[in-house]
């Protein structure tokens, strides 16, 4: 025997070799024997072939996991509606985007954010619904993104600031000039309650876009520590990447000098 097959390295090696050769049973006799003698390895290979992976942390029996897989695959084949809910009074505001989904959770923005986890019987995820407030912003929330893995939701708004400043010209004359800057303002909240996030040093972070020609947010995406926001400009768009935990700007892409 070349390695210890009881360790996870052995499992990965087996699966790696199997899948490279187009189908799982086209392996050499030694591997085939090992696979056939281990129901757990067979189950892990079945899961892998279906685009899934075994969750050892759940601590459930092999038989239960197999049953759940069969149920899952048969549901995929049948695709029969399992449940019909009626949720009245959903009024999606015109200025907001379509319902958003991330990590299996649906969000619908109304006067607050309504969140739905439809659950999954085969994956033992219970159904849950809850609601969180939208932070009070100047103007309105242009876009939002959330990541259930870090219990974080980010709301993006644009805040206009009109500045009056003195322009000194070359020839001793001077004039007052009015210009407006737009700030991209991000409000960071917990997805579970809408409160301040304990890991976010600043609950509100911003980026000033000089020139004031930003009038929307193109996209926003958040992960466990990074946040990216892009706003369209007259010729292209700016993109800003933050570490939202420390509020530090990591990278700014400006297509032209505004």
């Amino acid at each position, binding site marked *: 025997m070349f390695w210890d097959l009881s360790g996870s390295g052995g499992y990965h090696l087996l699966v790696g070799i199997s899948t490279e050769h187009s189908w799982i049973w086209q392996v050499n006799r030694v591997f085939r024997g090992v696979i056939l003698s281990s129901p757990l390895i067979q189950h892990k290979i079945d899961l892998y072939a279906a685009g899934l992976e075994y969750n050892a942390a759940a601590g459930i029996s092999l038989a239960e996991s197999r049953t759940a897989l069969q149920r899952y695959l048969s549901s995929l084949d049948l*695709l029969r509606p399992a449940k019909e809910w009626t949720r009245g009074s959903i009024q999606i505001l015109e200025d907001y985007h379509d319902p958003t989904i991330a990590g299996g959770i649906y969000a619908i923005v109304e006067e607050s954010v309504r969140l739905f986890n439809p*659950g999954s019987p085969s994956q033992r995820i219970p159904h849950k619904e809850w609601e969180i407030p939208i932070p009070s912003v100047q103007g309105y929330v242009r876009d939002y993104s959330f990541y259930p893995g870090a219990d974080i939701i980010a709301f993006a708004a644009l805040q206009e600031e009109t500045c009056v400043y003195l322009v000194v010209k070359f020839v001793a004359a001077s004039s007052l000039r009015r210009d407006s800057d737009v700030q991209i303002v991000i409000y960071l909240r917990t997805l579970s309650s809408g409160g301040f996030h304990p890991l976010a040093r600043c609950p509100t972070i911003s980026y000033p876009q000089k020139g004031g020609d930003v009038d929307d947010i193109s996209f926003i995406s958040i992960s466990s520590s990074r946040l990216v926001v892009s706003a369209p400009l007259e010729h292209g768009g700016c993109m800003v990447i933050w570490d939202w935990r420390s509020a530090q700007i990591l990278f700014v892409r400006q297509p032209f000098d505004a």
Partner: protein
Amino acid sequence: MLEDERNVCAEFIDDYRLLAGFGSSKKSLPCIVLMDTEEDSGEVPMQTSFHLPPHFHNYTSLDLSLERGVHKPSPREHLAPFLQDSTQRIATLSLRSSGYLIFAVGALSRLSKSRGGCEIGWDEWKTHTAIPAIRMPDFAQIWVSGCRLFCLTSIMDGKVQVYDFSVGGRAKYLSEQTKAKLGGVRYLVSTGTKVCLPWGVDDVNGGHDSIIFFHVSILFSPVPRD
């Protein structure tokens, strides 16, 4: 690489890596870029560009679609017997009237790890792509869940089809038929699942192993007569 004016869309595929679609501009052809934002030194993130075939040269914006926020199990999934294998996740790129291109996010990620910061030609990654055989005039809406693409082919009678890009799905459903315009990318036929929903659908979305179909009923209150 980011010097000129281009339309961009982007989504995090894990804690640090951002999958971005850059549209074409006067100076550049469209491409898919994987940016690694892990370094917090303020330097430009390391970017691996995945070039697209000439078919895309006039795409000023790329329409990417992938499942959000799924690279790690959420706290509610800890008791699930199995999870989506994040290495087999897919994303789609719209081919406008010609349908969609499916690609394996994990394959791009592996190429980016081994050749980070490089430009990767279409011929080098096209084997990780497929075209779902969707009859386009019928198409209404698509969504991605793990390694599967779900397609709602008609809003009125809600027909749903499934395209399976998992290891098993590819072995079973990848057709020999290819699309010459994309350099011989193979078609992926549907799993044969065809569902007609009993009601019209306004919007549709999927997550975990659930699909939510939004359908709206409007109730008129009787108007009292004078």
